[in-house]
């Protein structure tokens, strides 16, 4: 009885320490974002703050192109999600339902693209995108983001379709439904958790990407949030208040995603980046 009690408290204590480690940086980010500029560099700080100021956020929204960046990020992320979901669903379907020549090579090549250090893809990607005229466009960045998330999503969808029994699809066929109709009406609803986790990953990768956006979006009007965020570090002194305010805002959609869709994430996490 007492041992059990001690055990429970031990567990609680450890969990508290761990959660502190996880949450404190996030907490401090939020606190900093809500601290007025003049107090930012005046330690010691009150670890628990009661007076908040929206100065940084106001400045962020009025004096910077934050909203433009945010809009760009949203457009690109949503585009990435749509293309990713469509392409990876189809590919996952083909991989799970058909045998064909080159299947193994395709899968292996897909995995291997992950092993290439992304840093040096800058030049070739820049070349390719210049060549097809897709620099500084939403389409181009969407394609680039698809390239980093698609291999993973093909993988996810492949595995998802594998656990959807073939007989479901066959039952639809024997009911008279065409292959396409069976795919849409029967397979897709069954693979919905997979599709949602693929969508979340595409969104997250696109939303977080710095490297590709930095290479491809050279026009400031086309910057996404992470690249825009980097401009706050540049040039002048690092403006921590602005940076933390934008970090906070950038984190919110992600947190919402995670909170509402976490059970789908659990599946998607079984593989991937």
């Amino acid at each position: 009885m007492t041992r059990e009690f001690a055990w429970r408290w031990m567990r609680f204590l450890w969990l508290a320490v761990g959660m502190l480690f996880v949450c404190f940086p996030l907490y401090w980010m939020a606190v900093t974002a809500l601290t007025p500029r003049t107090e930012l560099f005046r330690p010691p700080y009150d670890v628990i703050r009661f007076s908040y100021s929206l100065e940084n956020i106001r400045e962020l929204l009025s004096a910077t192109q934050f909203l433009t960046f945010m809009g760009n990020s949203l457009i690109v992320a949503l585009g990435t999600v749509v293309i990713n979901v469509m392409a990876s669903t189809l590919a996952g379907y083909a991989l799970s339902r058909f045998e064909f020549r080159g299947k193994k090579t395709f899968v292996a090549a897909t995995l291997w693209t992950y092993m290439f250090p992304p840093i040096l893809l800058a030049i070739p990607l820049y070349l390719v995108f210049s060549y097809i005229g897709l620099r500084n466009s939403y389409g181009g960045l969407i394609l680039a983001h698809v390239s980093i998330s698609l291999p993973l999503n093909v993988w996810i969808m492949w595995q998802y379709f594998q656990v959807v029994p073939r007989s479901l699809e066959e039952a639809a066929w024997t009911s008279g439904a065409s292959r396409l109709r069976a795919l849409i009406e029967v397979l897709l609803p069954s693979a919905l958790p997979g599709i949602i986790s693929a969508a979340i990953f595409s969104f997250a990768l696109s939303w977080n990407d710095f490297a590709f956006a930095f290479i491809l979006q050279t026009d400031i009007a086309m910057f996404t949030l992470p690249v825009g965020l980097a401009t706050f570090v540049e040039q002048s002194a690092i403006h921590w208040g602005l940076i933390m305010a934008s970090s906070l805002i950038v984190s919110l959609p992600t947190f919402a995603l995670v909170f509402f869709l976490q059970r789908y994430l659990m599946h998607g996490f079984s593989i991937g980046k």
Partner: protein
Amino acid sequence: MSVALKLDNVTKTFTQNGKTIAAVDDLSLDIQPGEFFTFVGASGCGKTTTLRMIAGLETVSSGKILFDDQDVTNVTTQKRGIGMVFQDIALFPFMSIRDNIGYPLKVAGMPKSQIAQKVEAAADLLSITDKLSMRPTQLSGGQQQRVAIGRAIVKEPKILLLDEPLSALDARLRTEMRTEILRLHRRINATIVYVTHDQVEAMTMSSRVAIMEAGRAAQVDTPRQVFRAPRYESVATFIGTPAMNVWDMQVTGKAGQPVLQGGGMTVALTREDAAALDGFRWVRMGVRPAALKIVPQDEADFSAVLHLREPLGFEDECHLETADGTDIKLVGRVPDTLVEGASLHIAVDRADYCIFHPDTGKALRHGLAPLTAA
């Protein structure tokens, strides 16, 4: 009268590790309208592949499949107009029971009111009317199976395919559903093609069965014929519980008075059997456990020691051992006084035994009548 379903030299080959394997090997058979036709056999015998070819889910490597004399070999599943019930039930988990059953009608573009009516009718037939708004996961295994059947029959297909539909159910439900399916067969006017590995299902439900072995139909016959007059030793041993006793026997005795000897047994045969044994020095003799009788010593063909008796209810299944150690199974009403270790005298029912070719396993004689030609 046209044939509901005709398989014409149907072959299905797979390539595995560079080798070509025939899953179904030159299979030909006719199924008549309204028949309850069953493919039965051990796993891997090709029965399911055959069914899937009939459904159009597998392509045919060579040969033809005809529905009502129409060649459907290259017709897609969707256009064959069949109904099918799958081994794993395969209900759409995200649809209500109503939508599951109505799905084929929805695909066919039927108006909603008509769908509702037909779904009600099917549900009524299967007594699941009160379950229509539920989801498949809320139903028991047997109810799910009814829904699956409902979905298969709602379009009133001429051919209904059932792929081991009862294998997912427990023993009691299986028996119940057997009757249910039979009742259904009588009420709907469809040809049923049924696949099972369970010989009891095959024997109790079918109008005819095909015993499948290694991609071929070893025998296509009524259940009674298959039991009483197996064409092959393999069919004979596959059908019937407990399995038929089969012994290697040496053919001795005078001409016209053959005697089979082996395994510590000596069985004198009738004159009629002599022809069947002609030219054989060894044969295999098959006797169903129920065709062995405990008799007084003077009527006995041989003696054996009782090792174990398993009560089956009315009857007992007895494990016997002959003098040279051959195991023999006997089913019958055995006097309670007999205890394990007792020595019994056994006779073979002369009306009900089989003689098989020692190499090919083909039946030379069986229980219904002596076969004249080998």
